[in-house]
């Protein structure tokens, strides 16, 4: 997910571009190194797991194996505009373009990887040609599916498993959707939350048994505790850095947090991860001291709801900046990815891990999503909410219209634009532009009335 920020309108760029944090470049480099290293896993004789969904990677780290997060690779391909070969392969295989584009991109990669590296009997082919980025993933030794909040996420690995001829082991972690049947239910509270937490924690112990079986050695619990210690620290720094952005005008924006998703989502829990977020926080602190702002002329503060439009990140960042709109917070950045570090008990991290997996931003009811959004809107002084209606991701789109109504009732302006996680064909620039303009005008009008 290294972001290739390009100017939406080169003429306007110099004057109105987002001033991104320079510290996030280090994250881009760390992520690139991570993938480059993963591509050579086979040569190095490492065992490889392909997984989807929650960040169960600390378990793989403690097992001494290498991990490939399917969605992350799909996002990376889209962000680098290299999703084409995988998506075409998926289409040839029979996927309709309305299907989740993460799934069909990554399944396309699976087809390519399998063609390049594995015989029909499941035997690795030595020296196979893997020249397209989409086909460079090392063939897996086994799969782990750990997808909360989306049935497609779970079904997707049933298909990956079949693409590899049902020859490789697959472990699945199941998650209850945090629906809220009883009045005691709320964010991080209620019987349902407690029960779900315990149920997922039990499965994580089973997952560890499975991984131990696959590797033939016991999990190194010390490494797991250590990884979770670093992740917890990195997460705290990330949240502290985010809180600094409440300053007006903002020293950094949502786009910097988007650039920081990959590190917190799947890089190893180690000192480098902590250093990265410490660097981000330090840069923001310095900006606050120096009065440096992310936008030269911040006039509006917006929230962004929905999953990212990976092939349009740079474009979107600059489009909002051109309009003096600082996008401050979002569900995908502020309510996700180890976002409640106090839940992690470093000595006994499993329950806290399980709880974070349940806190996937797509695993909440619309009511809770609305409450979280309104909480952030208040914290960041938000004027309006931009909803990315993600064409092929019903999970990210679920509840958005309800949440929009909740936001409107709270006096916020809202707008929708259609796009997609990894298929640029669903995005229409003109629609975003006209709707954004209309929303900003409405914000102006309301300010004038209030004045």
């Amino acid at each position, binding site marked *: 997910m290294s972001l290739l920020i390009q100017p939406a309108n080169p003429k306007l760029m110099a004057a109105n571009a987002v001033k991104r944090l320079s510290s996030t470049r280090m994250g881009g480099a760390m992520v690139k190194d991570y993938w480059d290293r993963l591509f050579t896993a086979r040569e190095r004789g490492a065992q490889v797991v392909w997984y989807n969904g929650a960040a169960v990677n600390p378990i793989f780290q403690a097992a001494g194996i290498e991990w490939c997060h399917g969605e992350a690779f799909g996002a990376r391909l889209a962000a680098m505009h290299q999703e084409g070969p995988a998506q075409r392969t998926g289409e040839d*295989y*029979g*996927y*309709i373009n*309305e*299907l*989740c584009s993460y*799934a069909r991109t990554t399944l396309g990669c699976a087809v390519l990887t399998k063609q390049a590296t594995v015989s029909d009997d499941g035997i690795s082919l030595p020296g196979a040609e893997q020249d397209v980025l989409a086909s460079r993933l090392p063939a897996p030794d086994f799969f782990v*599916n750990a997808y909360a*909040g*989306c*049935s*497609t996420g*779970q*079904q*997707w*690995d*049933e*298909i990956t*498993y*079949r693409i590899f001829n*049902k020859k490789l082991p*697959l472990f*699945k972690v*199941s998650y*209850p*959707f945090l*629906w809220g*049947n009883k009045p005691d239910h709320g964010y991080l509270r209620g019987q349902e939350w407690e029960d779900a937490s315990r*149920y997922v924690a*039990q*499965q994580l112990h*089973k997952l560890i048994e499975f991984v131990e079986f696959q590797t033939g050695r016991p999990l190194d619990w010390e490494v797991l505790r250590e990884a979770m210690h670093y992740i917890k620290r990195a997460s705290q720094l990330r949240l502290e850095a985010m809180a600094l952005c409440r300053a007006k005008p903002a020293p950094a924006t949502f786009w910097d947090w988007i650039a920081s998703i990959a590190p917190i989502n799947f890089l190893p829990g180690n000192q480098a991860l902590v250093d990265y977020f410490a660097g981000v926080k330090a840069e923001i602190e310095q900006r606050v001291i120096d009065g440096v702002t992310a936008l030269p002329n911040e006039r509006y503060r917006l929230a962004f709801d929905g999953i990212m439009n990976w092939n349009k990140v740079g474009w979107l960042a600059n489009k909002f900046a051109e309009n003096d709109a600082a996008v401050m917070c979002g569900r995908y950045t502020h309510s996700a990815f180890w976002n409640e570090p106090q839940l992690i008990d470093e000595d006994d991290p499993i329950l806290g891990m399980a709880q974070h997996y349940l806190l996937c931003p797509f695993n909440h*009811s*619309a*009511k809770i999503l609305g409450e979280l959004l309104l909480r952030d809107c208040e914290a960041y002084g938000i004027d309006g909410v931009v909803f990315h*209606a993600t*064409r*092929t991701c*019903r*999970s990210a*789109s*679920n*509840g*958005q*219209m*309800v949440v929009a*109504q909740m936001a409107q009732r709270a006096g916020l302006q809202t707008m929708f634009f259609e796009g997609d996680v990894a298929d640029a064909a669903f995005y229409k620039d003109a629609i975003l532009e006209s709707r954004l303009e209309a929303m900003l005008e409405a914000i102006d009008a309301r300010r004038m009335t209030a004045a």
Partner: protein
Amino acid sequence: MPTSEEILARLARIAEDPNRYAEAWKKARGRKVIGTFPMNFPLELVHAAGALPVVVQESGQPITLGRTLLFEFYCGYTRSLTDQAMTGQMEVFDAFFLVDHCVALLGAADAMRFELTDKPIFLAQYMASMDEAWNVPEIRKQIDLLRAQLEEFCGVTITDAAIAHSIRLYNRNRQLLRHLYDLRRAGRIRITAGQMQVLVKSSMVMDVEEHTSLLADYLAALEQENGFGEDLVKLHLSGHFCHAPPIALLDMIESCGAVVVDDDLFAGFRYISTDVPETGDPADGLTRWYFDRNTNVPCSTQAQKTVDWETYLVKSLEKSGAEGVIILMAKFCEPHMLYYPELRKELDRCGVPHLLIETEHLGLPLEQLRTRVEALLERVSRGAVASPAPARHLQPHP
């Protein structure tokens, strides 16, 4: 004794407008009507609570207000649910219960919950992954939850004896419907695909005893005269989750010179495929049923390594003698889109001609589709001329 046509016409009216039936039932009995959602809900529990369980159907009305709570890129069924909630078409229901976890369905149910603030919508989520031993007690736990919630809502105690009684009633109903399927597969009766849909769909919305009694009458009244001619191409209809495909589409398919001999549609064999064990603890029986259904007719909404829909499909063709397959897919149905290539691959491998038709909530281009169906039948016929050996198409290509 009414004729088979008369019985069918009555069931068709109910299947067409289930809410009207439910209103009359409610008025006559003074008990609750509970809406349930596809595809795995154990209606027996609601029945045992003394309420009328209804699998909520897609409405024939166009989507209007529903657009303001659910995007247009959701399947027609979920968009219709939301629209029905917003346009007062859900009045008859006292509450809703669901166990399935399809992401679109959860989104729709949540939107309904926002709109219908006076009607509880209760989720007892069944884990969809069926390979893990620990998920069996987890499903059992959800059944206990459902039972407790229904007891609280209906103000009754649901005894084991009541559940066992309901299980027997539903099993009997499913058995009669499966008997009709057997007769149709064997070519002993001619029931059109549209008629079969009426028979199954009405069973989802009616009082089970009343439905069973009408089915028994229907079977008795059915003349044996109507096997079908050899010149018709035998087809299997596959898929179409959660809701019924338009009958006009089914009629059009058969009007092209085909006869549907089997299906694995939700509003079809998938729904009635499996009985609940009648011995032992009834809640354990309902737990078993959930797993057994997916073994009997695998579904891509479930995650199970040990069964494959495509293997089931090809075996079904052997049984029914179907020569081609039409895959009916509700547009935007994610679990179906995801699995479709696996079906296609296997059908191609076995040399079975097949066709994918995507359906929408309303307004299918029937004439365009007719051309595609005719082309499929043509392909089947050409294959039959080349080699008349039975079930030749099931041999894998060399």
